[in-house]
C-alpha cells in the first residue's frame, strides 16, 4: 500500500465527514490553492458561548486537500473559537499522519487556511514564511 495514500486518507477522501453546506452558518470562508485548483469552503455554526456547535465543508480537489478538511472538521466540532487557536500547521500535518512533500504542503493546509479565514478572517497561509514553508 502506498505510504501517502493509505486507507485512512482515502477513506476520508471518498467518504468525507461533515460534507455539504451548513444551513444557518454564522461564519464561512472560501479559498483555493491556485497551484492545484483545490477549493474548500468552511462553514461554522458558533453559539453565543463561542463554541463551534457544528462545522461543515464543501470543496473539490486532490485527496490530500479533501481528506485534510474532513479530518479537521471532526477535530473542530465542539471546541471554542479560543481553543481553535491551538490548531496549527504542525497539528494538521500530524493529523494526516503522512509525510507531505514540499510541493503538496499547501494541499494539506488549505483546510486550516479556510478554517482560520472563517473563524477570524485570517487570510494568510498557516505558518507562512519562506523558511517554514521550505521545511515541508
Amino acid at each position: 500500500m502506498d505510504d501517502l495514500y493509505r486507507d485512512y486518507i482515502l477513506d476520508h477522501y471518498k467518504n468525507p465527514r461533515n460534507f455539504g453546506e451548513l444551513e444557518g452558518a454564522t461564519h464561512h470562508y472560501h479559498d483555493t490553492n491556485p497551484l492545484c485548483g483545490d477549493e474548500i469552503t468552511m462553514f461554522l455554526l458558533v453559539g453565543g458561548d463561542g463554541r463551534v456547535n457544528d462545522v461543515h465543508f464543501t470543496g473539490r480537489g486532490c485527496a490530500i486537500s479533501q481528506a485534510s478538511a474532513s479530518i479537521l472538521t471532526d477535530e473542530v466540532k465542539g471546541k471554542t473559537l479560543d481553543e481553535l487557536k491551538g490548531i496549527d500547521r504542525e497539528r494538521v500535518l500530524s493529523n494526516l499522519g503522512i509525510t507531505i512533500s514540499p510541493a503538496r504542503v499547501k494541499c494539506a493546509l488549505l483546510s486550516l487556511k479556510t478554517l482560520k479565514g472563517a473563524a477570524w478572517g485570517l487570510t494568510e497561509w498557516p505558518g507562512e514564511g519562506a523558511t517554514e514553508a521550505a521545511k515541508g
Partner: protein
Amino acid sequence: MAVTARAEVARPLDVERIRGDFPVLSRTANGRPLVWLDNASTSQKPRQVLEAMRVVYEEHNANIHRGVYEFSERTTAAFEEARAKVARFINAPATREIVFVRNATEGLNLVAYAWGRDNVKAGDRIVTTVLEHHSNFVPWQQLAKDAGAQLVVIDVDDEGRLRLDQLRRELERGANVLALTHTSNGLGVVNPVAEIVRWAKSGGATVVVDAAQSAPHTRVDVRALGCDFLAFSGHKMLGPVGSGAVWGRAELLERMRPFLYGGDMISRVSVERSEWNELPWKFEAGTSSYVDAIGLGAAVDYLQSVGMDRIHEHEIALTRHLLPKLLADESITVFGPHGLEERVGVVSFDVKGIHPHDMATLLDREGIAVRAGHHCNHPLMTRLGVPATTRASMYLYNTTAECDALVDAVGKAKKVFGI
C-alpha cells in the same frame, strides 16, 4: 516546399543515440529510471548546448557590443551568429528582425506593450482564443482594459479544436489584433495559422503568434504563416532557461517605441532626449543573456541536424502508440483531439476519481514526470469543465517503452485508489 520535405520523412530517429546526448536522461527519480514526459513545461538539454555555453564561460567570456578587445569581439560574434541561426530556423526575412528575450512570455509582453499601447485604441477589437496560454491572453486582456478595447475570445469544440467558423466571422468583421497560439500547450492542438492569418488580414488585424509549443516540435516558417509577430522560448526546445526570441516584421519593429530603456538600446543620450539603437538592439536593453542566446543557437543546430519533420513524425508515432491505450480505458477521459491530424505529442487526460495532483504524485513514485494542473490555461480549463488535467508531453528522446511505463503506472494508481 514543406510538402516536399515532408515526403522525405521516412528515416526514423535513432532515439538511443539521441538519448546518449542528454546526460539527465540517465538519472533516476525515486529510484526508478527517469521518464521525462513534461516537455511542454521544459525540455532537457543535450551536451552540445551545455558545451557551447561552457566554451563561452571558460574560454572567452566578455560582455557583448562593448569591449574592443578580442574576448568581447568573439563573444559578440557568437551572440550575433546565434541570432542568424534563429532567423534561419523560422525562415525570417532578416536577421535584424530577431529580438532575444528571456522567454515567449517576455516576447509577447514586448509586443503588447511596445506595439499594442500605440496601436490599440478605444473601441478596437482584439481577437484571441480560449486555447491561449496565459502569456498570450493576459497581456491582451489588460491592454483591452487600459485602452478601452473589446476582447473577443473564440471558443473550441469538444475536442479542443478552435471554432474556425466563429473565428473567421469575428476576423472578417474587422479586428485590430489577433493573438493566437500556434499549438495549444494544454491539448496539443495545432491551429491552421496560415489560413487564419488570411482571414485576419482581410479584416485588417495584426497577427501575434505564440509559438512556444510549436517551435520545439514542428517546422515554423514565419513567411509561410504570414503573421506579423511570433515568439518562442528556448528552454522548451533544448536550449537554456532564460533564452528565447520574438520575431517581428522590420517595418513594424522600426515604428515601435522601445520596450525597456537602458544600456545597449540607445544610440545617443543627452540630458534632454534619447535616440534609439538600430534593430534589433533597440529592444535589447541592458546586458543580454548572451550565453543563453548562444546556447539557444546550439539547440537550433541540434534540432536541425535531427530534422524538425522527423522530430514531429516521431512524436506523432508515440502519440499513436499511447492514445489508444488511454482511450480504451473507460475511467480515462482524454482531452484534446483523439485523432492524429494537426496535433503534437501532448496528451492531456483525467482518471475518474483521481485528482491530477494525486495522479502526478503516484506517477512520480514510478519515476515518471508529468504535469498536473491548469497548465496556465484557466479559460480553457473552465471551458472543459475541469479544475486540472494530467498532461504527458513528448519529445524527440521519448520512447514507446516510456509510454507503456506511463500506462502501467496509471494502472497502479487506479489500484491505490481502488478504481
